């Protein structure tokens, strides 16, 4: 829990409207008010050196115009009841409150409640006060935003008992010891509180946690925690013991340190006078927070043990019953034994006083006996029926009391693993999965052999590679980092199948604290990552020595963004070998620590797109629908507990109509009970619109109904027999009724007229509700041909396809002209499929993907064609559009591009072949294609036409005898194309297209290495580059590889001198005569520093020896 900062405190104070409190509240002597109590109990009083506002209540009691609390307290006084008021301030919320049962009004500056609990105690007591006074009108308008805090705050505003009723209704189980204690309290003639401390305190704490935002525990969790505390073996307890109370084994409480003897004597004296037993236990507490915050804000409640009914303090947690831990000023831990719920007899006086409806007093036997008997009955029931009955949920409700406003769903939520009614196998799987984490979380030996179910295909076994952790024993420990999370999902359809409770109960069973992290809010990815990391890597601040690790539960994960999921996966798979390499740089390196905590994600739709990646790394636990019988058993229990009588078949109907939706069932029951009905017949349930969610039927279900007569018959049978009482008579498909004119709303009317419902009545509304007409139709379209309906002449197929054509037409019209009212006719195409193409046989239906694949392939090829058409030269483009390219040109073009050529070097080609090569290169260039080297799947390299026009041309089945070019030929062509392209880009005149010129150009240009055989001028033929540089004469046009380009300076201006040599004119000149060209070249060389620039790939040129004569 976070410590509030000073600002927070200030803010709270401001919020609590302290300024509006009367001046007396600030009076240091205000606490004296409390001394107006009748003498018997006010044994010791102490001056309260308040330095802050407190005693809101008392102040009000004096001055408040409608101060009912004060009125009652004075009434208490006059009636002689032992009621006392303690005045209090807490360090955080400066509030006053009145103790519930007689307590000495006392405050000491050094006594404070432990911070984490003080508010709850304060509000607890205040709530008790409120409950004593019943409903009260608001006495003071308050500017708080939060009703809850308003309500809990010192009796200032209205109290609504309904809100707190759950706490009335939810007393903790108490046992004999607690009972004795209760008796002890009762013996003090003390008006017993109407409800127990625990629940109020818990509620308050839950509330406070909520207020602080995040990380808080829910009420249920706290209750569970408290139950665990009773076993005094919970982490919190342990850490408290260890951290703050090293001597917790001591039996006797330590004597007071800081209460002076005089004080004690005084107190003893007072007690003696009052006829009370002497003090045995300490009574001073210092809130931890107050301790930290020095003594600037002292004054805290002191529920003095000297009072007969004050809380019992022990140095160690009580073995039985609830307790509350407090810290005294020395940092010693004390435990306040909380008072359990008193018996009904004890409540009686209070009831009388409050004129609340009596709960039936004068029981023939004590409650404890009744409880024990009830327990025994329950155990017997479990034993006999083998039914996992709830250990806690069945509670007594008081029928005469105003109905609890708590939802039954909350009230009867499973509190433990054994309470779960979802599929036991799944629950066990989840539990055993969680237990697997013991190995890496707690280092326990691996006890359970976890066998992932074969039904979980997405489950990825832990990587076998050991990361070499010390003490890694086997794959599991090593795989700790990549331990998959459980993505808890039910295939989409099963809402309220108990996923969440199972996910929460399983960790509880294995004693792991749960960290819920709801995902409803679209979280920033970074924020989400931080929160997850915070949850899995950190733990509670208190008693950090011995804390238990968390189990993170992320709810509604299917609503999250893919980025968040990726962040989650990064956390979950951090440190596993597969991601190790990736995570070496940057931010990802931070995540290298493997995940050490289990993460459970809950979702409805496991196939949500964002979860695609998560499915790969997580154990997917699909939650099947709850079984009807288990649900009915639970509903029966609830009805019994609520004294709501229903016949068994009503529950059956209810379960069926809600499709075994637990939440819906319970809510419906509560709804019915609220209407004051005590007996409901099954037909009423069937006709009730309540409880039937507007559920979307899955696509597969709709396809089944449409194409498979058998599933439709089942559906129609249940539709026609809502009470499920009638015998299932196979109804022939009412094809005639198909085009009947009944609307969905009047179904029951139709039924009552005796007409049987057909496809149109039942399924078409479902289709309309589903709304995904396109997917529905494409599913039908892709599946209908594999359905075996009788259609010897293919007439039905034609008819169905006519409907499809109609659909297509309407659909286009709707979207092109925005005439959406026409969409209402689209579902009837589906109905037509049912008429024509449904069959009795069951057929495996496939999800449509053909069309998607088609669109994908189409777009890919369209982009190829677009690339070709936009890339080709204007002259070609002018006479070519996309359709012509595909239909007429592409195939012959592909033929032209695969010439029959020997795969040898250019130099060895004969003239005809060179001509052909030149033509191919020319065509490739005019279409702006190229051959690019691509690594194939098998690791080999191949030249691929880019854009790959061949992909557009070729079909899966062989359609032509087009030869496939061998690799060397492609290489040759690719090389030629590159050279030619460079030449053109360099602004050189493209070679004339006369065959001789082009062939020799190509031939020469291609001569990377060996000189042309035709060359005659020099025996020691230098490389083409050298030729150019030296202006060496050559019969062929100059090679391209060198930079004949205009030399420019930094600013892009042409350098004049160089231009002379490098422009095409001089090239042409070189053709005329060697001497002239050589002279020009020498001129050029004289002007600039000799520099060599080699194109890559011409390494032989680098090694070439150059004579100085050549350079000069």
């Amino acid at each position, binding site marked *: 829990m976070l410590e509030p900062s000073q600002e927070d405190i200030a803010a709270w104070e401001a919020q609590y409207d302290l300024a509006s409190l009367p001046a007396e509240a600030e009076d240091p002597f205000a606490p004296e008010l409390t001394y107006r109590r009748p003498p018997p109990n006010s044994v010791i009083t102490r001056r309260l050196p308040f330095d802050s506002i407190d005693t809101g209540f008392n102040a009000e009691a004096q001055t408040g115009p409608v101060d009912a609390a004060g009125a009652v307290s004075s009434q208490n006084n006059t009636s002689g009841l032992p009621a006392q008021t303690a005045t209090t301030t807490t360090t955080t919320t400066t509030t006053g409150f009145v103790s519930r049962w007689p307590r000495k009004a006392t405050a000491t500056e050094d006594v404070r409640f432990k911070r984490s609990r003080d508010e709850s105690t304060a509000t607890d007591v205040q709530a008790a006060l409120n409950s004593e006074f019943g409903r009260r009108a608001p006495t003071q308008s308050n500017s708080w935003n939060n009703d809850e805090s308003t309500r809990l705050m010192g009796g200032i505003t209205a109290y609504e008992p309904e809100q707190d009723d759950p706490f009335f209704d939810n007393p903790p189980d108490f046992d004999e010891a607690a009972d004795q204690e209760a008796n002890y309290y009762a013996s003090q003639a003390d008006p017993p509180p109407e409800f127990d401390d625990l629940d109020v305190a818990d509620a308050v704490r839950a509330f406070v946690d909520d207020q602080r935002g995040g990380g808080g525990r829910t009420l249920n969790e706290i209750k569970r925690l408290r139950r665990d505390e009773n076993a005094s073996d919970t982490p919190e307890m342990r850490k408290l013991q260890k951290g703050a109370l090293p001597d917790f084994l001591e039996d006797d409480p330590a004597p007071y340190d800081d209460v002076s003897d005089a004080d004690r004597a005084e107190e003893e004296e007072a007690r003696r006078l009052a006829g009370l037993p002497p003090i045995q236990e300490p009574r001073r507490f210092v809130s931890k927070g107050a301790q930290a915050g020095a003594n600037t804000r002292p004054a805290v409640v002191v529920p003095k043990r000297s009072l007969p009914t004050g809380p019992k303090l022990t140095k160690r947690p009580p073995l039985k019953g609830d307790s509350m831990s407090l810290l005294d000023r020395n940092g010693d831990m004390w435990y306040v034994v909380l008072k359990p719920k008193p018996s009904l007899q004890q409540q009686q006086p209070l009831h009388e006083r409050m004129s609340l409806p009596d709960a039936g007093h004068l029981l023939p036997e004590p409650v404890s006996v009744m409880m024990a008997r009830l327990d025994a009955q329950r155990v017997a029931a479990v034993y006999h029926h083998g039914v996992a009955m709830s250990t806690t949920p069945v509670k007594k409700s008081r029928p005469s009391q105003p109905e609890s406003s708590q939802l039954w769903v909350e009230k009867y939520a499973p509190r433990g693993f054994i309470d779960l009614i979802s599929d036991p196998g799944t629950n066990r799987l989840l539990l055993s999965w969680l237990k697997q984490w013991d190995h890496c979380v707690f280092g326990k030996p691996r006890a359970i052999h976890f066998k992932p179910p074969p039904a979980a295909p997405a489950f990825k076994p832990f990587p076998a590679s050991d990361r070499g952790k010390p003490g890694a024993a086997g794959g599991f420990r090593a795989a700790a980092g990549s331990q998959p999370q459980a993505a808890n999902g039910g295939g989409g359809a099963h809402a309220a199948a108990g996923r969440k409770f199972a996910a929460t109960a399983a960790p509880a069973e294995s004693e792991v604290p749960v960290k819920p992290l709801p995902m409803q809010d679209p979280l920033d990815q970074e924020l989400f990552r931080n929160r997850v990391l915070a949850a899995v890597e950190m733990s509670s601040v208190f008693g950090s020595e011995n804390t238990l690790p968390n189990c993170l539960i992320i709810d509604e994960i299917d609503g999250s963004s893919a980025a968040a999921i990726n962040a989650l996966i990064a956390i979950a798979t951090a440190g596993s070998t597969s991601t190790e390499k990736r995570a070496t740089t940057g931010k990802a390196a931070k995540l290298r620590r493997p995940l050490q905590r289990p993460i459970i994600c809950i979702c409805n739709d496991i196939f949500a797109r964002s979860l695609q990646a998560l499915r790969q790394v997580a154990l997917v636990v699909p939650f099947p629908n709850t079984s009807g019988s288990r649900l009915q058993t639970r509903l029966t229990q609830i009805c019994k507990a609520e004294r709501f009588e229903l016949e068994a078949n009503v529950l059956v109907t209810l379960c069926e109509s809600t499709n075994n939706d637990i939440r819906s069932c319970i809510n419906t029951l509560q709804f019915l009970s609220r209407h004051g009905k005590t007996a409901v017949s099954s037909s009423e349930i069937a006709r009730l619109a309540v409880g039937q969610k507007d559920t979307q039927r899955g696509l597969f279900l709709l396809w089944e109904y449409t194409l498979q007569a058998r599933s439709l018959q089942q559906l129609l049978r249940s539709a026609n027999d809502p009470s499920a009482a009638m015998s299932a008579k196979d109804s022939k498909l009412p094809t005639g009724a198909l085009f009947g004119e009944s609307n969905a709303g009047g179904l029951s009317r139709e039924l009552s007229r005796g007409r049987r419902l057909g496809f149109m009545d039942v399924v078409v509304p479902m289709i309309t509700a589903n709304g995904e007409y396109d997917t529905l139709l494409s599913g039908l*379209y892709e599946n209908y*041909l594999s359905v075996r309906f009788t*259609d010897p*002449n*293919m*007439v039905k*197929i*034609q008819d169905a*396809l006519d409907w499809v*054509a109609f*659909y*297509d*037409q309407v*659909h286009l019209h709707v979207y092109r002209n925005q005439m959406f009212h026409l969409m209402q006719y689209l579902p009837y195409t589906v109905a037509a499929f049912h008429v024509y193409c449904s069959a009795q046989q069951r057929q495996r239906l496939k999800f449509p993907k*053909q*069309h998607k694949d*088609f669109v994908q392939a*189409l777009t890919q*090829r*369209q982009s190829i*064609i677009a690339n070709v058409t*936009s890339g080709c030269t*204007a*002259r*070609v*483009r*002018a*006479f070519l*559009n*996309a*359709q*012509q390219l*595909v*239909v*007429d*040109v*592409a*195939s*012959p*073009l*592909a*033929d*032209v591009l*695969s010439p*029959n050529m020997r795969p040898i070097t250019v130099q060895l080609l004969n003239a005809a072949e060179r001509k*052909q090569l030149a033509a*191919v290169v*020319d*065509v490739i260039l*005019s279409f702006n294609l190229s051959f690019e080297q691509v690594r194939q799947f098998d690791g080999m390299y191949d030249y691929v036409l880019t854009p790959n026009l061949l992909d557009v*041309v*070729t*079909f899966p*089945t062989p*359609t*032509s*005898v*087009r*030869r496939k070019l061998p690799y060397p030929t492609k290489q040759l062509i690719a090389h030629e194309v590159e050279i030619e392209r460079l030449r053109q880009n360099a602004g050189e005149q493209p070679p004339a*297209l006369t065959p001789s010129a082009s062939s020799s150009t190509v031939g020469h240009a291609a001569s990377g290495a060996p000189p042309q055989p035709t060359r005659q001028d020099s025996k020691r033929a230098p490389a083409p580059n050298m030729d150019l540089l030296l202006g060496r004469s050559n019969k062929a046009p100059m090679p391209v590889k060198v930079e004949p380009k205009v030399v420019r300076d930094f600013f892009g201006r042409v350098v004049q001198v160089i231009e002379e040599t490098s422009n095409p004119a001089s090239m042409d000149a070189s053709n005329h005569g060697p001497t002239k060209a050589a002279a020009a070249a020498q001129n050029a060389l004289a002007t600039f520093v000799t520099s060599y620039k080699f194109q890559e790939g011409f390494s032989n040129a680098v090694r070439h020896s150059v004579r100085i004569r050549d350079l000069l």
Partner: protein
Amino acid sequence: MALWVDKYRPTNLDKLDYNLTLSKQLKHLVSAGDFPHMMVYGPPGAGKKTRVMCLLRELYGPGVEKLKVEHRTFKTPSDAKLEIITIASNYHIELNPSDAGTQDRLVVQDILKEIASSHQLDTQTQRSFKVVVLTEVDKLSKDAQHALRRTMELYVSTCRLILLCNSTSKVLSPIRSRCLGIRIPAPTVPEIVTVLQSIARKEGISVSGDFATRIAESSDRNLRKAILSFEACRVQQYPFVSNQPIQKADWEVYVEQTASEILGEQSPKCLLAVRGRMYELLSHCIPADIIIKSLTNVLLRSIDRSLKIELVQWAATYEHRLQLGSKPIFHLEAFVAKFMSLYKRYRLNLGY
């Protein structure tokens, strides 16, 4: 220069090889100076575009051959960007508005406005108008055609339209009536043979009249196709042999395979297989109407005369539905199913 089909494309009205009277008429038209809007139509590969380019050259001289490809972007009302490729010279601009899909109206209007709003600078020596060549007018949406109607009248002083299409049946009659319709008939087989032989002469290869005729016949009187397949044959094997196979386009072969599948078995299972093949054809960007047409042609070859009329009638019906809908696969499959049904009934009647 690229493929033979581009390399040996005539650039002058005088050089055109066939439809000589038409060339002469066009020349007269140009010289008369009163140049109307034109609609040039005819089957693919008949030389519509070539003739239009020759005509433009006749109008403006060789400057019209300096073509440049431009990527123009348009903004749709919904702020989406639309890119259209235009081919333009100083005197004309050519675009294919059907590239713009549903926004073709916008493109047509914008381009026409832009072109028409600027007058030619030198009207003494030049024509006073520019020319806008719109290709594939039959694929224009009705909206765009209506828009065209008004624009044609509005800007007639500064620009002329030349509309190119395969068939006038898909063009609104108001537009047809505003244009001088020029039909370019497909070349006859002997004409194609002449063209092929002249190309062979220029390429310096020898081709027998027999082989040229075979090529011409297999090309469906589509000159482009004929020249391309001639070149393909040349690349594949030269010198030609008389029985050298003339390679058809791959998709045509695929359609033929499909047709034989349809004729082989008429069952839902076969229909499923055919659907896969149809998807394959469509994904290779072959337009659905061309698929129906060529499939019908192939089927017509191998069915009884009594079925032929019905087949053609249904082919037309489904081709029409194709135009009305947006998912061609439905209609292709419906057509195949229809034919299967017809053919099956026919075979049963025969007593197979």
